[in-house]
């Protein structure tokens, strides 16, 4: 028993001694850390615990000075510090890295920094390679704090003052899979004896798209550098890059206990578009509030500016928490269109609208963070009222969970736009004198036109459908144009570079009556410039119309694809009036246009015309467009009723090579029918010249030598001569017009044959003939003026 008590007593004595020694050591360590932490010991510790960074240096100096029991000053200076962390991809070399910092020991926090006496870094190069897999960072628990100015600083540094800061990275490189950033940067405090932190960076960004250089400069002035507390902060920043500049000036200051105010002004040019922004905000324990405006100048050639003015953003907070309870945004939207039209007041100076957004937070996480929300966006333009009426509106409803975005997000949208012109004449006047002037014969019409655009559905869906309608109800000067258009535009993968669009449109020409311009018998006037003759500056030499082989598609091409299916049809036949037709010509359309081809039919309905000097009934002429064909298919029927017979003229083949088939009731031969049509007599009663004309016309029609327009002229006008030139394989027709005028029809092809034809008819039964003859004098070509008769 005594032994036990003695053992326990000795143990307690030992423990007491150990505790006393430990306490003494600890007290000594705290009071005089320089006794324990020598430069060499710290250097060894740095090498040991920093092994992962493979550090090396030429000189390492550590010093800790105790200014009091609790106040210490630590200085570390390393020369030629080199490090390399393969796992993190970081490496670098600094000529000098030195820091001198003063701190006070305490309980909470254990260490409080009181002053950064000096921080110096002269890095010759730094390299960070982010291309490889990066270790996941452990989640850090964050403590919610009011975002007040003092809270901007980390806790241990909230009372710290600053001495001298001189940081420089002469060259740094950050490698990423999409490219690289390289450049230099520096930061200094004070800046030219002013209590201001200045920093600048010169960065070159390289990627597959090319290289661009950016320069940034910032200056921060705050009482944090001198007072050890942060009650105001003023910052200026400039950014400059290819085609872009930006300036920012911001001021944040404490306006009361736990109250902060913010004022920021920004401006610049990004991508060629100038912008300005002016914001003022406040933060109180109850809410955040922001007021301001944002404007973009000349975003498109047709818009001078787009601006959000008088914006109000309010975020009320949950009581006793920093979590938002709701969010509302209300802005005045203004679009300023570019001047257009002859009158300076033709377009409004501003198209006004409104953008409103509000969101409610419906629930919070266990940690008190906002979770489920409902949001609504309502943006509207107009209504504009003048000679036209225009309005547009976008409504968006979204809900989801902030912690699970974007997967939990649900959104529905409704988009609409309407334009209506009550008096078409106003539109004509508006566009008059511009390159979009309404052409004749439409510019004399009166009535209304309108168009609307509508879309709704799941805003997150990769496929979106938009419907549109348009219509005209115009009439005037004997014309009528009532058209309705209905269509839908399907956009697939809208939010991806490989988006595609498919448009389906129906155009119904409900009532159409147009008048053609004055035309004369003969070739139609060419009213469009022949595109074969080029006059552009780029046409240094004639462009080879045979297109070069298409460039091979690049894998992963992001070009959008546009597909369409447009149908044009007449629910009642359109009426075309011309001075060449005795009665209006009904035309029915049933056409379909797709990217690969246009197909369908153009059907000319029943009408009367004087052909071959007799009244004929054009029963129908149907022109059919076949995909890939260069000419329209032809199917027509013309009927003559004569005392001798009823004659049917069938038009077959194509518009470029129409074939004419003749039939009759009772049946007659082709030549008999043509003789009746051309001369009103049977072939036996015709003279030689007339018979020749009938024969040539018959063969020309069968061969498709006559174009469609020429056929009409041929049928409409007394024929004097029909010839078929074997050398050029073209026809020649001489027509007798009223007034004794003659007109020659025929191909304009170069006469490649000899200058002399075998026989040249001058008049019925008269010709000039050349004949090769061999006489005693040798070979000779002789020419005779002859009268002839065949029987």
């Amino acid at each position, binding site marked *: 028993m005594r032994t036990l008590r003695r053992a326990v007593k000795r143990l307690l004595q030992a423990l007491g001694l150990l505790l006393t020694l430990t306490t003494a050591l600890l007290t000594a360590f705290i009071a005089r850390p320089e006794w324990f932490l020598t430069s060499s010991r710290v250097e060894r510790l740095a090498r040991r615990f920093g092994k992962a960074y493979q550090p090396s240096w030429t000189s390492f100096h550590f010093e800790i000075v105790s200014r009091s029991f609790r106040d210490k000053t630590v200085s570390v200076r390393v020369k030629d510090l080199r490090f390399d962390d393969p796992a993190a991809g970081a490496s670098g070399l600094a000529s000098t890295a030195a820091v001198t910092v003063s701190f006070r020991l305490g309980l909470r926090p254990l260490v409080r920094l009181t002053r950064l006496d000096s921080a110096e870094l002269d890095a010759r190069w730094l390299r960070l390679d982010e291309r490889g897999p990066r270790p996941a960072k452990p989640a850090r628990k964050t403590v919610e704090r009011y975002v007040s100015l003092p809270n901007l600083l980390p806790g241990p540094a909230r009372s710290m003052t600053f001495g001298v800061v001189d940081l420089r990275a002469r060259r740094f490189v950050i490698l990423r899979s999409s490219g690289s950033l390289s450049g230099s940067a520096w930061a200094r405090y004070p800046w030219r004896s002013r209590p201001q932190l200045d920093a600048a960076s010169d960065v070159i960004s390289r990627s597959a798209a090319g290289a661009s250089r950016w320069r940034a400069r910032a200056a921060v002035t705050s009482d944090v550098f001198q007072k050890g507390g942060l009650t105001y902060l003023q910052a200026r920043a400039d950014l400059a890059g290819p085609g872009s500049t930006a300036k920012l000036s911001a001021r944040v200051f404490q306006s009361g206990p736990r109250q902060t105010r913010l004022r920021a002004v920004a401006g610049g040019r990004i991508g060629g578009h100038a912008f300005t922004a002016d914001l003022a905000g406040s933060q109180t324990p109850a809410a955040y509030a922001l007021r301001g405006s944002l404007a973009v100048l000349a975003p498109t050639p047709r818009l001078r500016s787009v601006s959000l003015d008088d914006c109000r953003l309010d975020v009320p907070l949950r009581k006793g928490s920093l979590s938002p309870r709701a969010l509302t945004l209300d802005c005045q939207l203004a679009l300023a269109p570019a001047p257009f039209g002859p009158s300076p007041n033709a377009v409004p100076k501003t198209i006004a609208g409104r953008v409103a957004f509000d969101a409610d937070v419906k629930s919070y996480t266990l940690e008190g963070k906002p979770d489920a929300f409902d949001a609504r966006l309502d943006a509207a333009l107009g209504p504009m009222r003048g000679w036209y009426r225009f309005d547009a509106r976008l409504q968006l409803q979204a809900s989801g969970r902030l912690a699970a975005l974007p997967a939990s997000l649900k959104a529905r949208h409704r988009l609409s736009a309407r334009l209506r012109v009550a008096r078409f004449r106003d539109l004509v006047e508006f566009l008059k004198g511009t390159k979009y*002037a309404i052409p004749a014969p439409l510019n004399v019409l009166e009535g209304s036109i309108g168009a609307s655009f509508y879309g709704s559905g799941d805003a997150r869906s990769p496929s979106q459908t938009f419907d549109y309608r348009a219509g005209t109800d115009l009439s005037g000067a*004997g014309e009528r144009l009532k058209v309705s258009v209905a269509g839908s535009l399907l956009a697939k993968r809208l939010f991806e570079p490989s988006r595609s669009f498919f448009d389906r449109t129906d155009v119904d020409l409900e009532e159409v009556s147009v008048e053609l311009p004055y*035309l004369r018998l003969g070739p139609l006037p060419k009213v469009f410039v022949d595109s074969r003759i080029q006059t552009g500056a780029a046409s240094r030499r*004639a462009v080879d119309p*045979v297109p070069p082989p298409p460039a091979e598609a690049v894998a992963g091409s992001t070009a959008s694809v546009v597909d369409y299916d447009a149908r044009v049809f007449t629910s009642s036949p359109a009426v075309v009036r011309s001075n060449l037709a005795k009665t209006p010509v009904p035309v029915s359309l049933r056409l379909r246009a797709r990217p690969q081809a246009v197909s369908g039919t153009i059907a000319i309905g029943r009408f009367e015309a004087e052909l071959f000097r007799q009244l004929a009934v054009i029963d129908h002429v149907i022109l059919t467009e076949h995909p890939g064909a260069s000419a329209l298919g032809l199917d027509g029927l013309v009927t003559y009723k004569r005392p001798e017979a009823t004659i049917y003229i069938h038009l077959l083949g194509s518009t470029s090579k129409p074939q004419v088939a003749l039939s009759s009731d009772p049946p007659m031969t082709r030549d008999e029918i043509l003789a009746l049509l051309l001369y009103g007599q049977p072939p036996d009663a015709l003279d030689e010249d007339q018979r020749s004309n009938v024969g*040539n016309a018959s063969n020309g029609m069968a061969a498709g030598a006559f174009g469609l327009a020429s056929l009409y002229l041929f049928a409409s006008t007394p024929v004097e001569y029909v010839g078929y030139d074997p050398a050029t394989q073209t026809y020649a027709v001489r027509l007798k017009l009223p007034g004794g005028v003659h007109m020659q029809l025929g191909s304009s*092809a170069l006469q490649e044959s*000899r200058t002399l034809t075998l026989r040249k008819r001058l008049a019925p039964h008269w010709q000039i003939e050349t004949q090769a003859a061999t006489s005693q004098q040798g070979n000779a*070509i002789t*020419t005779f003026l002859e009268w002839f008769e065949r029987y």
Partner: protein
Amino acid sequence: MSRRRRAPLLLAAALLGAGPASARTSSRAAAVEQLCPRIRFVGPAIDLDDVEKRLVCGDPSRPAWSRIPLNQAEQFMRAFLQRRGRNFPTFKAVDDTLEVRIGTPTYVTKMTTTGLEGILDMSKRRHIVGELMTPAELDKFTSAVKFELQSRGYACPKISVTGDARTGEVHASVDPGPRYTMSDIATPPPPGIDPDIFRRYWAFEPSQPFDTRLLSLTSDRIQTDALFLSAYYEVACTTTGLHITQRVVEAPPREVRIGVGADTEGYLRGRAEWKHSRIGYRASSIDVTAFDSFLEQSVDGNMKYYLRPSDRIYLMPRVFLRRESYTPYEAAHSEAAILPSWTWDGTDLHVETRGGPGIEYFNTLRGEGPIDDKFLSFDTQAKVMSHLYEYYERDPREGWTASFQSKSRVSGAYSDLTAHMMRVDEEDLWNLGRYSPPLAVLAIRGFAGTTWLSDPSLAFTKLPPSMRFFMGGDANFRGAPLMELPNDAGGFLTAVYQGVELRAGDLLPYGLQPLVFMDGAMGGESAFHLDPAVYWAPGAGLRWALPFGSMRATIARGLTWARGQQTLPTLNLPRWQFFFTFGQEF
């Protein structure tokens, strides 16, 4: 007034004159022509036709087209100006008026092609460079390229022509396509005739490369024979290849023609002809022609009797009754012969041969020759002609022809003497530089002939003048009148002629083509012998190419180079000789 005093006055007058002149110039430069109330030309103006004017100015008679917006009028005007070679107009809208400056005309300065390498060279094509650049000119260039390709076997080319108005370049992008042959010709049977008859007119071999000119030549042959009123070949390019279809325009088979012509040799010429061109299913033919001129009156009857439809062998019975009244002689001459004949066409040339016996009658009414002589003769003719010569026969520019003819009579074979007449003719033309249309044509022609008699003493008593040689006239030696070389009734028994002519192409307006030539001839009064004297005739002339014929006028100086000859035959040289013909070619 002294010269010294006049000078300042003259200078002042010049300056004063220049002022108003410059004002006139500037006012001319700013001349304004009002086309209509809203359109005006500033500077030179163009004439618009009625339809064009209504399209740009508006049509008061049509309310829908009464007012044309200026941008639409500008578009129309651009098209109309382009049609006139004005590709750089400028427009300016001033209030409600459109000012039009028509700009300078654009001319074609260069022709270029792609796709024709190794096939043809379009640089030889004329009348494109230097012309106004208009859509019609582009069509013309397209047709020219198409014709050239179709003459070289490329029957279905794809041609796309563009023009660069800034540089004046017209460019043809061509896909010639495959080369085709002249095969697969569809011939719809004309009624009553075997369609194989068309083969005898083919100016090609079925296996040879396609040539559109040869199709035209074939059509000409059919029309020359009056077989049909019109004949042509329709060429269709389809996805299944090339299809050629024969088309004809039928007419009644019998024809009567009465015509007149004129030249300086025969003066007025008259002709009456009756012809039946489609006898039987083999389309044999017969024609009777009565011909009358100051120098010759005749009635000729010919028949072509084909043994089979597609045969090129035919029997040619022939008879003529003729009165010949030339300077050396006047005679009644008739013949009845039967001449088996044969033709053949290769890829490049055409051959005709015939030969056979005939009974001739010759009665010399004036001059030297037999009186009331009947004899049996054997005639042969062979002719070779290039297709190009035949194709361009009525507008000679290239090709060649050569012919041989003979006439033989043997004493005792229904003949009083033995005599053999042989004659070779040739003609060659070259298109210098191979331009199209030609820039210049060089031609040579000539003949050589001789008549051998067993008894030369009978040459001028028993031998008819048709077997002797007389030169002179537009057809050979142009330095002497028709058949007046020699200028006696005897003529030559041997003769040689060679002529060369250089004719300009269409360098002058109105189709006028100047020409220069040199004719040379030699003759001899015995067989196979030429006297040393050379007859030569330099000359010049003019050809006027009309659509239905050509007029030629030549003037030459007939000269003699008596090389050591003591006596010359009776000559009418030196002399100036003028000829005017219509239709006669070199």
